[in-house]
């Protein structure tokens, strides 16, 4: 008889060993067939869309920041805090993401500049997170390998709810940067950052600390909270939209499968959220073809949707669908939301889908 084992999400533990031994780590993943000529067109880079969006983004950030300063001490500040917070604490995530992939702009330095600014806004070490995201794409939701599994099993629903406030992320991100600035990387971090890059992570953390120290110094000198409300604290009060959209990427779906159609979710969203999120609601498409820039994802979606599960028609629908799954996972952590492939889709490779790593562990 096989006893179900708890998942070990450490990146240097038992699940890691099993993932490597069973071939789940660095595996070959399913891709929908797209003719090379079409894919080449979809992959084409252009500076235009991202420059336009970045100008809108920066103008909106500066405008809402000016509103915060202007209306400081009055209730009129609230809408400006709302806008500034979301732009700083949420839309920076998609900018970090797309520029990290190098797909937002054609020109490399533009990707790098926005990447570093967005990393700072998110309190993310730009070196560490570049590598963790590479691992996320190699081993998406492979337990023991993926460094970016947002909701682990059994799900901690209180933690998930608190994520909307940014408190937990803030509590994790800031001490992590401080630790890294003092030259210490964790074993998990060392498992995915190559040795030759680790010193760069320390230097990046120190730069972030310098800016935060300067912000605190200015706040003290001015005897004002404004510098901190504009730099740092939006990570708390503006992070909710990032969590709202980001949680849906993989929550409640299968783990330890090598097909993004089964462990990743595409959700139709309103235009505002899509601007904030830079079209990452087409998340199956992004994972399957990370070379395709955000502005071409709707076109890619139209091209391959016959081979993908039906997208959720809204965020509300997606959360309503996954909620009972999460509740059930509290008792049975092996339970998950199975994505049904349409009749027009190629079937999932059964030899992977049937793989039971807990059984493998018991042997």
């Amino acid at each position: 008889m096989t006893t179900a084992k708890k998942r070990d999400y450490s990146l240097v533990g038992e699940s890691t060993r099993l993932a490597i031994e069973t071939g789940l780590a660095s595996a070959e993943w399913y891709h929908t067939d797209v003719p090379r000529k079409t894919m080449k067109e979809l992959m084409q880079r252009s500076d235009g869309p991202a420059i336009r969006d970045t100008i809108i983004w920066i103008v909106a950030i500066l405008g809402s920041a000016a509103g915060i300063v202007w209306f400081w001490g009055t209730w009129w500040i609230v809408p400006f805090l709302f806008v500034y917070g979301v732009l700083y604490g949420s839309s920076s995530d998609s900018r970090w993401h797309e520029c990290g992939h190098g797909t937002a702009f054609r020109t490399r330095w533009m990707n790098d500049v926005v990447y570093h600014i967005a990393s700072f806004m998110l309190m993310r070490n730009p070196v560490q997170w570049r590598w963790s995201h590479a691992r996320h794409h190699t081993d998406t939701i492979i337990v023991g390998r993926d460094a970016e599994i947002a909701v682990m099993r059994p799900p901690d629903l209180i933690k998930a709810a608190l994520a909307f406030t940014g408190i937990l992320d803030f509590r994790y991100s800031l001490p992590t940067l401080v630790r890294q600035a003092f030259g210490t990387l964790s074993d998990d971090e060392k498992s995915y950052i190559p040795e030759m890059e680790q010193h760069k992570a320390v230097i990046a953390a120190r730069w972030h600390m310098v800016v935060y120290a300067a912000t605190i110094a200015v706040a003290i000198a001015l005897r004002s909270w404004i510098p901190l409300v504009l730099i740092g604290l939006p990570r708390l009060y503006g992070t909710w939209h990032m969590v709202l959209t980001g949680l849906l990427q993989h929550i409640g779906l299968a783990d330890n499968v090598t097909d993004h159609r089964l462990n990743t979710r595409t959700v139709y969203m309103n235009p505002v959220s899509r601007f904030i999120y830079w079209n990452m609601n087409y998340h199956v498409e992004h994972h399957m073809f990370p070379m395709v820039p955000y502005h071409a994802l709707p076109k890619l979606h139209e091209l391959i949707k016959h081979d993908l599960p039906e997208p959720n028609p809204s965020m509300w629908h997606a959360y309503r669908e996954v909620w009972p799954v999460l509740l059930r996972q509290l008792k049975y952590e092996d339970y998950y939301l199975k994505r049904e492939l349409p009749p027009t889709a190629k079937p999932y490779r059964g030899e992977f889908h049937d793989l039971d790593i807990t059984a493998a562990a018991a042997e």
Partner: protein
Amino acid sequence: MAEWVEACAVDDVDEEDVIRFDHGGRTFAIYRSPEDAFFATDGFCTHEKAHLADGLVMDDIIECPKHNGRFNYKTGQANGAPVCVNLKTYPVKVEAGKVMIDIG
């Protein structure tokens, strides 16, 4: 010692594109630059095992389809994370409409 092998016909590769060439259990990538010159490198990314022939050629850069790592395919130079190890390049010549690479 030089070992020239025929990789493909000139017309098999579009301008500013790449194709895969397998020979003797090895995989290579054959590039045609925007200036209509041909180049060859190892076929797999040095970061993880991904076919560069599925990637995107932009000017003198090949971008890996898996993690968007970038190399200069003319020199093999890795252009930053997540690729840190240079790509091996091979001499190329064009003879009678055929692209030949020296895999020796």
